[in-house]
């Protein structure tokens, strides 16, 4: 009697199927492909080359409309422009103020309790306090009992600080001196957040502290500065105690104009003995101009970054 399996028909069928699959390509035969035609040109809407819609929209907005689509995605040219804008923003965030920059510009160098760029991004609390060494040196050497303490700082864009920073700082100090105020020792703080002005101003026993620092970059920009002013700077002040002005750069509020308006804000604080939500801007609204209406961004013309 045979101990083998009964003769299997299934095994033969599978073997036959395998042979067939192994011999036959699962795809249909390739078609001959004629030369691919050039697709219609789709480009980032620069002033020289843009659709009628993009042209009309550009008078009202910097939003990228009328850029068309390839399937549901962007044209190559739009992708490159977009990546360039993103790279500029990321570059501005990643930049650090060189260690000797403050002194080379004649500012008293200060540093917060932050010790690395990553820590600066993750620990806003440390960026609001001076390092022990900085605090001691500043307390010992800075001018005291001043009307206004000007502070330049890196904030979220050291690129902006090194760009328009000195012009804004110089312009503001000149405006203060023109008004006969006692101006504090000009200083520059690294790894600084807005609230650092409280400790710096408190140690100088300043009536008003003003910090000028790089603002969080948007797409394609990284050169904007913001200014925050506070009356009676001291640890424990909050945002409600401060007045601010944003969008300070060549295409927004030019540094020279900003310097004048900041001096007017400081003057209001000295006159009224307060700042922030309690400050009444109405008495000098005309001098403040746009600053009185609040600090929102004006649309800026979007510039083409990639030329090939």
């Amino acid at each position, binding site marked *: 009697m045979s101990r083998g399996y009964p003769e299997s028909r299934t095994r033969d069928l599978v073997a036959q199927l395998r042979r067939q699959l192994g011999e036959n390509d699962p795809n249909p035969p390739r078609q001959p492909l004629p030369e691919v035609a050039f697709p219609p040109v789709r480009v980032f809407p620069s002033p020289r080359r843009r659709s009628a819609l993009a042209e009309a929209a550009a008078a009202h*907005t910097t*939003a990228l409309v009328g850029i068309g689509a390839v399937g549901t995605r962007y044209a190559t040219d739009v992708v490159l422009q977009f990546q360039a804008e*993103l790279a500029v923003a990321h570059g501005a965030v990643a930049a650090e103020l060189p260690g000797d920059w403050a002194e080379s510009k004649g500012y008293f160098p200060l540093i917060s309790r932050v010790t690395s760029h990553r820590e600066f*991004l993750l620990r806003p*609390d440390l960026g609001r306090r001076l390092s022990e060494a900085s605090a001691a040196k500043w307390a010992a050497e800075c001018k005291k009992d001043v009307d206004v303490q000007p502070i330049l700082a890196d904030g*979220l864009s050291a690129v902006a600080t090194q760009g328009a920073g000195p012009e804004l700082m110089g312009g503001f100090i000149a405006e203060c001196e023109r008004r006969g105020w006692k101006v504090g020792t000009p200083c520059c703080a690294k790894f600084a957040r807005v609230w650092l002005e409280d400790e710096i101003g408190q140690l100088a026993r300043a009536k008003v502290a003003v910090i000028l620092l790089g603002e969080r*970059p948007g797409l394609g920009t990284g050169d904007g500065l913001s200014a925050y002013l506070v009356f009676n700077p001291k640890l424990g002040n909050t945002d409600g105690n401060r007045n601010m002005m944003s969008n300070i750069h060549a295409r927004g509020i030019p540094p020279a104009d900003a310097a004048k308006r900041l001096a007017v804000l400081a003057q209001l604080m000295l006159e009224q003995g307060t700042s922030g939500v309690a400050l009444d801007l109405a008495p000098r609204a005309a001098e403040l101009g746009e600053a009185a209406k609040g600090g929102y*961004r004006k649309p800026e013309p979007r510039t083409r970054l990639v030329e090939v």
Partner: protein
Amino acid sequence: MKLSATIRGNSYTFRSVKEVLARANPPKSGDDLAGVSARDPVERVAARAVLSQLTLGELRANPVVPYEQDELTRLVEDNLDEGAFNAVKHLSVGQFREWLLEPTTTGQKLRSVAPGLTPEMAAAACKLMSNMDLMVVGAKCEVVVRCNNTLGLPGTLSSRLQPNHPTDDVQGILYSAREGLVYGCGDAVIGVNPATDTPESTAEILRALGDLRARNGIPTQQCVLSHVIVQMKALALDCPMDLMFQSFAGSESANRAFGISVALMDEAYDLMRRKKSSTGPNFMYFETGQGNALSSDAHHGADQVTMEARCYGFARRYKPFLVNTVVGFIGPEYLEDGPQITRAGLEDHFMGKLMGLPMGCDACFTYHAKMSQDELESLKVLLGAAGCTYLMSMPVGDDIMLNYQSSSFHDIPSVRSLVKKSPAPEFDAWLAARGISSGHTPGERLGDVSVLR
């Protein structure tokens, strides 16, 4: 209640349920900033082991902010559906996770249990789940809402059209809105974050968007996201307000920093019910985001995931049409990088849906966070697969007013065709009639604004 666990002979003991919840959280820079995160990865697992043994009943008895100190805790406790709670109170969090994942736990069952869950329960389940767990359960949840159109039906993915402008130039807003519509965007809402927070500008923008909708017969709703008090004043100015908006945080003190309370929101809801221009039973819109309680130092020592879930406990009182987490907007001190932002987006979607909310997500990053464009695109597809109710949309994902990166007009039809999801049915029919798209398939007139009047 046992608050200790042993791993490889090392014993880990925790002081409170709040501490267990915090230490069980996956790494978040905001929890480090608050000083509540696990000291090392093994302690994190020990906390999860302890959490897996706690029952839902014990979580209800131990809210992270005490009943006496916080009106949101009182709101949740006093309004909890006892029948739904009794059905699951005996389950441990570990068993609850498994029950959620079981195929027999259908969307219908999840909808029935939602009113019996406290935020702490949703947050606890979240901490025991991987990203894909969160997606699997999130995709099962069925939350359908109706305003002028119907959102959240199975197989749909909607989008908010966000045509923001840095100076509220109405023509500029309309250029972006029209562009978005012809990419199939805007079925959740055409919603503008205003640069100027006044009743007059709110009313002016609403009228312009209302005109655009009426002229083209677009089945959606418009909203201007000013402060709720400003919108209440705008309602007196005769403007078409379909949805009323407000940002929420997870504690009474954090909401005080936002200038709101339960009493104020009750008043706003009642006023809106009488004065709204929309038709359906759902007409409120809320935004949240991990870290917003800590940013006003109002987190009560709790982690940011649990505080986020507490926003949803507040939101569900008003049967909202839209809720979304603005997940990466708050900055790297709360969510440091791509993996943390991705995780948070999936967590928030899961927790909101589990608690019965029509949950959308603003998948986004600020330019000082460590996230790439590719990582952000991945998150949008994950959210689409996880059944997210809606995503944002704006020109190339660049918000020219708020300066951050979100999803684009082009992303919405792309994600829809990848995950085979359609717009809301009323909006889908409107798009199909104009050749813009049909279901998840782009049409010949996609991107062509000449189809609009």
